[in-house]
């Protein structure tokens, strides 16, 4: 019973962050696939703007991951 309660508490606490992480990762996967498919269809490499957009996404995530790193 105690384990069940602990499980439920952890689930409730963590669920919002987990859902956000899942959603964010899924969107990034979809986004990357679509972008590369477009490039392939148009027979071209990524444009500077596309690189900048990807770098901005990556840098924003890294800033969060390393937010309190010393």
């Amino acid at each position, binding site marked *: 019973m105690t384990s*069940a309660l602990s499980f439920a508490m952890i689930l409730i606490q963590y669920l919002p962050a987990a859902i956000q992480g899942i959603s964010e*990762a899924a969107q990034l996967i979809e986004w990357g696939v679509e972008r590369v498919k477009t490039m*392939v269809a148009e027979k071209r490499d*990524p444009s500077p703007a596309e690189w900048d957009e990807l770098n901005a996404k990556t840098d924003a995530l*890294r800033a969060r*991951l390393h937010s309190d790193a010393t």
Partner: protein
Amino acid sequence: MYKTLRVFLLVGLIASPFALSGCASSVAETPAQRVYALQSEYAALLAAAVAYESQPRCIPPATSLTMACSQEDWVLEIRTADNDAYTTIRAAQDVVRDPNTTGNIGTALSIARSALTVFNQVLVNHHLIGAPTVGMYSPPGMKPPMSDRDLVQRTVPHSVLFPSMGVQL
């Protein structure tokens, strides 16, 4: 029973969005597209890592039994692996974006993939992402993906539903 529930949640709640996704690396054709694809997959792994890192740090021993938390040593390991992945991916990007490059594109890409594999493996080792469940997207005539890339793109970012819990399910 809880183990079954856990598996059900992981598969049903988390894996389903990814089951619908292909993977960028298997679509890419040119070196620049491959680096772009690799970096977008790296970003997806980052999102899973951030979800874990954003939890309050575990305070051992008792409170971790009833709190979702992130372990400090895991976070440090994740950050270290991320630094390596990021550095090598950006180096590969520099090579493919420089028209006058003297760098070896194949080598840069290979190094970046290796670092990303390590980053991926760190997340797998800590159960922040799960076992491969996503089917491969391989257009006709395309050579099979490399094993390290295969690992990255087939991995479902389960994120951290059950991070560093002290509870035995």
